[in-house]
């Protein structure tokens, strides 16, 4: 009952004019960002994070900026489907599996049905995930209140281990990526001893540390854009869409055939989204796979089955809400976008983690309320403005790209008022571009940069407490199992490798 009252209070705050306006703006920006090929929620959130300081200075709190960023996140999940269906190019990685059936539907003249199914499935997925989030979050936060330093460090180890065990990328490159992120987070002064660390070439700019936004905007504003310009070199043709009121009503009626896919995506997506390193992309792919495997008409998948759109679209929305759960209750982000959101919370003076629910209910519940509000706004804006988004998708990349570059540089300067950070951000972006070509995953590095400043003090305090004995991570009742799971995940690729070798020998 308390949860319900808090939620209603939160929704009322989210419906205040300023917050409602920000949610609408965020959803529109998110829809646009998500729809543009090469840009995803993380790019939008990272590039616009510096601008939220403006919102904070006007509203005087962290709630409104967070509502704005969360709305971008929501909108981007809806937007990804638009380009997947009409261009055949996923607007974001989370919408890759939407292309499988969305594109064939568009090519057969059913683009309007595909677009409406994607929007409605996203809405249902988002709503189911919001209800589960509201139920689970306070419970998980209450459990996490008993966590000490070893438990928190063990959880962080598990977050990184998930990338190694389940990430699917090149393992040494993933580990390298995690470690470089953690190392870069140590640049500056050691908060325990006060000693300077890694001040390269005695450049004073490093003494304040490498700021998170410099890396996030460098990677996602510059590096990703360069990569997109390099890879998307051929022109695309857009499918014509019938967006008359009659066709939209017809498409809404057609949605009844997508119930199964929507429900699979909604539930599966949420639980996959909770896992660090998993997030919306694998959630959507898994939902597509399960929807296909459990279908009586498997052969129609890939040829324009509406369940093949509903399942991944419901899943990516549901997973994006799921990824917020560990971020808000444990202080551990489940995806690069939530890593940026977490960094934003820290910058705005909040301490993410279980105490957030106890100490900052004025922040938490309006934010959760805004999830519900943004979800409704997103589906309405999406359905109402489909023609506008189709028009915007025709914007050449040679206009969009330089504007993003300008926003990246201006945003970085505005955040820290330091030209050194701007220069470093450009260099980071170019380096990220090169590493991306060679399959070095950047998402683990971004997560590591956020978690590094939390993980190191937890490790050091744990070892100080145990007199340097590492068994503290194995002997405590909560830390022990978490550390063991983390170790299993770390060694999972090795176990698979040995198993494959044995199988190969036998055959």
């Amino acid at each position, binding site marked *: 009952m308390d949860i319900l009252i808090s939620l209603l209070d939160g929704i009322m705050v989210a419906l205040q004019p300023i917050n409602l306006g920000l949610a609408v703006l965020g959803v529109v920006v998110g829809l646009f960002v998500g729809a543009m090929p090469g840009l995803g929620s993380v790019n939008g959130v990272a590039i616009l994070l510096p601008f939220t300081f*403006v919102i904070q*200075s006007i509203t005087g709190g962290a709630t409104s900026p967070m509502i704005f960023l969360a709305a971008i996140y929501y909108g981007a999940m809806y937007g990804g489907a638009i380009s997947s269906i009409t261009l055949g190019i996923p607007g974001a990685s989370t919408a890759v599996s939407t292309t499988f059936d969305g594109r064939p539907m568009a090519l057969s003249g059913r683009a309007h049905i595909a677009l409406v199914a994607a929007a409605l499935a996203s809405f249902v997925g988002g709503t189911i995930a919001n209800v589960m989030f509201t139920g689970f979050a306070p419970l998980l936060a209450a459990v996490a209140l008993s966590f000490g330093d070893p438990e928190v460090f063990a959880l962080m180890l598990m977050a990184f281990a998930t990338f190694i065990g389940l990430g699917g990328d*090149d*393992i*040494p*490159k993933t*580990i*390298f990526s995690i*470690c*470089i992120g*953690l*190392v870069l987070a*140590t640049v500056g002064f*050691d908060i*325990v*001893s006060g*000693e*300077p*660390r*890694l001040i*390269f070439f005695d450049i004073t700019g490093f003494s304040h540390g490498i700021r998170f936004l410099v890396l996030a905007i460098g990677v996602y504003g*510059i590096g990703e854009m*360069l990569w997109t*310009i*390099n890879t998307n*070199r051929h022109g695309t043709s857009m499918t014509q869409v019938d967006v008359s009121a009659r066709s939209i009503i017809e498409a809404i009626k057609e949605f009844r055939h997508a119930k199964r896919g929507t429900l699979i995506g909604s539930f599966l997506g949420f639980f996959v989204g909770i896992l660090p390193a998993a997030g919306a992309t694998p959630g959507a792919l898994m939902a597509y796979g399960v929807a296909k495997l459990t279908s009586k008409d498997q052969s129609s998948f890939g040829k324009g089955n509406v369940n093949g759109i509903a399942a991944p679209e419901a899943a990516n929305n549901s997973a994006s809400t799921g990824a917020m759960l560990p971020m808000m209750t444990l202080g551990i982000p489940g995806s690069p976008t939530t890593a940026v959101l977490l960094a934003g919370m820290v910058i705005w003076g909040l301490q993410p983690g279980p105490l957030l629910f106890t100490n900052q209910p004025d922040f938490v519940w309006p934010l959760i309320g805004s999830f519900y509000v943004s979800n409704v706004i997103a589906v309405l804006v999406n359905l109402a403005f489909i023609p506008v988004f189709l028009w915007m998708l025709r914007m*050449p990349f*040679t*206009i969009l*790209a*330089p*504007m993003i*570059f*300008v926003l990246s*540089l*201006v945003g970085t*300067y*505005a955040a820290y*008022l330091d*030209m050194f950070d*701007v*220069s470093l951000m*450009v260099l980071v*972006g*170019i380096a990220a*571009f*090169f*590493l991306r*070509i*060679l*399959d070095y995953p950047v998402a683990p590095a971004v997560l590591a940069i956020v978690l590094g400043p939390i993980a*190191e003090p937890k*490790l*050091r*305090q744990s*070892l*100080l407490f145990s007199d*340097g004995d590492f068994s503290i991570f194995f002997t405590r009742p909560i830390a022990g199992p978490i550390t063991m799971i983390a170790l299993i995940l770390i060694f999972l690729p090795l176990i698979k490798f040995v198993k494959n070798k044995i199988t190969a020998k036998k055959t």
Partner: protein
Amino acid sequence: MRKAEIVTAVILGILSLCIMWKSGEAPSWDPSVARFDNIGLIEGEGPGSGFWPFWLSFIMFLCCIWIGINWFRGTSTPSQSNEPFLDAHGQRMLMVVGGGLIGFLIVIYVLGFYGAIPLFLIYYMRFLGGHTWKLTTTISVGMTVFCFFFFDIAMRIVLPKGYLEPLFIPLYEIFL
């Protein structure tokens, strides 16, 4: 791509060793502390200041060796690829876009943001994108004016103006 894979691994390996060396640096104000004294556990203090970065960069170094082994065995995707690291299009893109970005950065130091933004947008949209002068001018001037009023006037976040600073004094007198 294959050559780039091993060259990058070697560069990153050297970088890891440099970070290990740098992590062991003793504070300049305490001559009694030797290099690498801080990378282990200190009695009564727990891990030293260099503990975390040193061992992480050590793991990075091991990863580089691992990447090298995978390269030798041809098990990673780039090590199996005969494609160039950057083809002619990629090299040109890097020259004109990456070079343009660095040029943009340098011009900011000279002419400030409000001189560099229109120049960069004209360079990109007109010369790389081939858009009309009308569209290019509208967007470059519009973006610059928006940034000025948003940051300098509305938010009082003063962006660097380089040698163009005197031109903005009358504007400040009008709007501030």
